[in-house]
């Protein structure tokens, strides 16, 4: 059965940009209102227990007017001390995850895109 996926234009454009960025493709789960939960593989730094992991985030139907935040890593990952305050272990969508609380404080919906945020998060996670 074919599934018709309804995404808002802003979210569809963002997914297209992310697909161009990720050689391994992009996971996409529509949220039912025009937004989507997006997962993209990301390389991690040497302090992490794995070299790479899926990074998941929600793009709401009104993205890019709404800024993307926060990001989630699988809960089975570990990090050598010290555990930074921007990371919290929580339950999200019935799964154990690590919430990455990195916010874009000066998000400009006319200029900024989620791809830029992902690059910043990636850089931070690779430290």
């Amino acid at each position, binding site marked *: 059965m074919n*599934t018709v996926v309804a995404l808002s234009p802003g979210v569809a454009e963002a997914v297209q940009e992310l697909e161009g960025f990720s050689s391994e493709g992009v996971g*996409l789960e529509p949220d*039912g209102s025009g937004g989507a939960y997006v997962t993209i593989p990301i390389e991690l730094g040497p302090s992490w227990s794995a070299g790479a992991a*899926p990074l998941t985030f929600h793009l709401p139907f009104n993205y890019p007017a709404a*800024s993307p935040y*926060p990001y989630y890593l*699988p809960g089975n990952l570990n990090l050598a001390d010290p555990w930074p305050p921007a990371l919290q272990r929580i339950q999200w969508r019935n799964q154990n995850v690590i*919430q990455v609380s990195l*916010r874009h404080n000066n998000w400009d919906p*006319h200029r900024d895109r989620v791809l830029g945020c992902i690059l910043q998060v990636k850089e931070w996670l690779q430290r």
Partner: protein
Amino acid sequence: MSALRISGKDYAALNRHLFRPDRDEYGAVILAGRSDVRELPTFLAREVHLLDETEFTAGEYGYRQIAPHVLAKLGNRAAEQKLSLFTCHSHPTATDRNRLSVPDLEAHERVFPHLLDIVDGGAVGGITFGLESAAGEIWAPDAEPQALSHVDIVGASSDQLFPDPRHDVETDLRFDRQARMFGAEGQAKLRNSTIAVIGAGGGGSMVIEQLAHLGVGRLLAVDYDVVKTHNLSRVMGATPEDATHGRKKVDVARDLVSRIDPTIDFQGIDGDLADGPVAQRVASADFIFLCTDTITSRLVANAIVHAHFIPMIQIGAKVDLLNKGAIESIYVAVRPVFPGRGCLACAGLIDPTALQREAATDEERQAQNYLNLPEVIDPSVVTLNGVAASVATNLMLMNIVGLADDEYLDHRLFDAQTGNWLSLKVQSDLGCRWCGSNDKSAFGLGSSAWLPVRIGEPDPPAPVASSRFARWLPWRRKRPSR
């Protein structure tokens, strides 16, 4: 029949260009989007091109003509932008009566079939403006030419231009005293208006009550909430029984309006402006009051104003508290948002982080509050709502009956502790995606504009992914087996 809407700012420039002391004829071209949610299909003037003497020249057949290269250039632009094209010129001696002349109609016969080919999908039309009148016709692909009904000018003082003056109307005795201020014609304009009120709580219910007393013809109230005990200090018409039974706020508003004037066509929508069908209904109104406190509804309403040229006033009251509960400031905000003016996004009043927070689930919001900050319940006081509602409703009244000045469109803040008013002018950011002058802006695109609303989704939504990525999907193990 169709209508044309134009922002007050653009009409002022067009009017200055078309009517000059030499009383000669001048020309312009309007490229327009189209709104199909109103009673009449309505074209929206997105671009107004004022033609100089090399572009509006001596005519080969009539007195003046638009140079063919100009029509070709602007026709191609209309095709690229999926817009319709209107040629415009002045009849400088026409005041409140106006007609397309025989040479005008003959020129349309010669030129419009070719122009329709160039515009490729959009309509073309010709409009002649008098000082207080407008007449025109519209050619759409595969349809007979139709007369233009009128031109709506959406400015501080809204106005309408018809081919002929409107007939005087009698005023119902109940409106006699107010009609002595703005006339029977003003009262008729109120009666012919559809006003949307988003939010029927403290501020919205007061606006609704005043609109009912003013005698507007149709009221569209939107609210998904029910009356609770703590609302009773502010919601007009709400009773303890309403709170006990959790009555819908729109039902309370309906009763309130019915008691004041049962002839008003009241339409209550138990829904959210951020849902597509609700937003479409609101875009069919003549004026919008935004009386909610969510940034999501602010974003949607702001988009409707600029995409569909519907004037709006956003109201709110805010009590800022210091850490220990002491009052820092108490103020009321009344913010007109009109097409052709700076929008709420340009004023920095649409916070991207707040939009993200409002889109999150309760569980997500709780997780994001990892610092365990206590939930803050904002104070809310009926007198503050009353100031905002009365000033805003008065502005709408001045706008509809044509008595407002441009200055009236400034944002206003009322300091409840000093009684002082502060005015703020908002500049439009040229790059703004809602009100800006750029190819990606929603300004005047009408029904083809993207509104930032929730869209329908097949049930149930299913995960999808490119196959090469499937191994990463955290939810994959939960998918049903085939």
